[in-house]
């Protein structure tokens, strides 16, 4: 019988059969640590790598919106003009990333598998706080790389099925997790975006008005931060906008977001600094 040999070739290693954690990243840490972004040992020194920039998020009655511009920069060069930095994390949450693009995308993929893995093993979804805490752990594990300049700073938003409201969580590179109220922005253009949101956001805006406010905020970020890309009307490259409600995550379709972007840009042609007061809804 050759079964022992074939077992080594194709059977499931003992680690797979060990009962225990429902966490995919914990499983990788014990079985294949080289696959985790945080456990790599880097040689000293700095590398130039593309950076993703501004992400904004805002709640509205019944959900939450997350939007990101499409630019990645490497020093003064635009590394990519149509990068996507906002992703669905699972059915009821999404994650946007600022920082080193390559690592950030890897962390997002790991986070997506982490949530799906838990759901399949346990037969239930994590609570929104549970998801936010898992993301904090993944970011914390990345701290050694952050200290070498490869930081990843996410923004997490989701629909809380218990409180029936949209919620936003921000993070720092040490894995600190902070719940934000109403709206938040991360990335190099975030201070301009946040300033814009402060003036334009209202807690009782409708879903479509909140999307428009987020697009305005990204426009203002791109206006003053060279690393944030404004809407590219010539190439029809518009911000990625995700809406999370009780029905799940929905990406605002290209033609719909195109319409909103064109309205915003048209208004800016008349008044380049944007609307003056609260938007009338």
């Amino acid at each position, binding site marked *: 019988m050759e079964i022992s040999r*074939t077992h080594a070739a194709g059977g499931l290693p003992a680690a797979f059969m060990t009962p225990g954690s429902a966490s995919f990243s914990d499983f990788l840490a014990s079985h294949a640590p080289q696959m985790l972004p945080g456990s790599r040992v880097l040689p000293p020194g700095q590398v130039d790598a593309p950076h993703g920039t501004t992400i904004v998020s805002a709640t509205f009655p019944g959900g939450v919106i997350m939007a990101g511009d499409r630019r990645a920069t490497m020093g003064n060069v635009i590394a990519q003009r149509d990068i996507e930095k906002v992703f669905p994390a699972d059915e009821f949450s999404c994650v946007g990333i600022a920082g080193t693009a390559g690592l950030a995308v890897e962390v997002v993929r790991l986070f997506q598998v982490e949530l799906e893995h838990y759901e399949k093993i346990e037969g239930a979804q994590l609570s929104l706080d549970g998801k936010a805490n898992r993301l904090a752990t993944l970011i914390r594990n990345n701290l050694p790389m952050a200290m070498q300049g490869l930081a990843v700073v996410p923004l997490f938003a989701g629909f809380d099925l218990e409180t029936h409201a949209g919620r936003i969580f921000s993070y720092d590179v040490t894995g600190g997790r902070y719940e934000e109220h109403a709206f938040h922005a991360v990335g190099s253009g975030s201070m301009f975006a946040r300033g814009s949101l402060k003036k334009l956001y209202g807690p009782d805006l409708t879903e479509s008005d909140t999307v428009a406010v987020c697009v305005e905020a990204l426009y203002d970020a791109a206006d003053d931060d060279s690393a944030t890309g404004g809407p590219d009307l010539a190439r029809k490259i518009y911000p990625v906008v995700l809406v999370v409600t009780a029905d799940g995550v929905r990406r605002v379709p290209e033609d719909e977001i195109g319409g909103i972007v064109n309205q915003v840009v048209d208004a800016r042609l008349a008044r380049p600094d944007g609307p003056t007061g609260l938007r009338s809804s």
Partner: protein
Amino acid sequence: MSMPFYVSPEQIIKDKADYARKGIARGRSVVVVQYTGGIAFVAENPSRALHKVSEIYDRIAFAAVGKYNEFENLRVAGVRLADMRGYSYDRRDVTCRGLANAYAQTLGTIFTENNKPYEVEMVVAEIGDSADADQMYRLTFDGSVADEHGFVAMGGQSDQIATALTARYTEDLELGPAVALAVSVLGKHGAPEPRTLDSSQLEVAVLDRTRTVARKFRRLSGERLTSLLADQPDES
């Protein structure tokens, strides 16, 4: 000093197989049926928490009968394997065939090397873009794999159920009739006395080709299952 009795390898294998078969025969049955829009999994299972049918990956699901802790162990291992493969390569690179092979090797090793074989029988199934691309593999306690088409019955009364299905199954069933057929044969042949199973005694899930999301696995329970079964003409 007493000499241990000589037991022939044939006898050891036979004893183990009999032991495993007996364990599996004690449990309630599971039927897996192909329908036009995908694959339906119907289990007689009064528990809402201890599943016999589960999602493995986007297009792959798992159904098992036998000893819960043993097939649960294999299910978790399958989810880990699928997620790890999908994470390191791509979601499209996770296949049912790879999973069935890994399970077969594992069950084969356990059967020959352990004193106690696993008392489980499982189906891993994957839906393709059309019904002829669907795959169903039945795995038994000794690691043997069978490539199945149309339907699979496992568990206590699997022979009687399979006979009944052979007579009544046709290839062009829609979801409703397919689930109704499975429920009907489970009720009639799944126990010594024929019964009528209602939705609270059933665990039903489908791999649904028509879903627009990547994860095609969906459970049908409660109201949805009751109304699906109520819409079907009474087959008797």
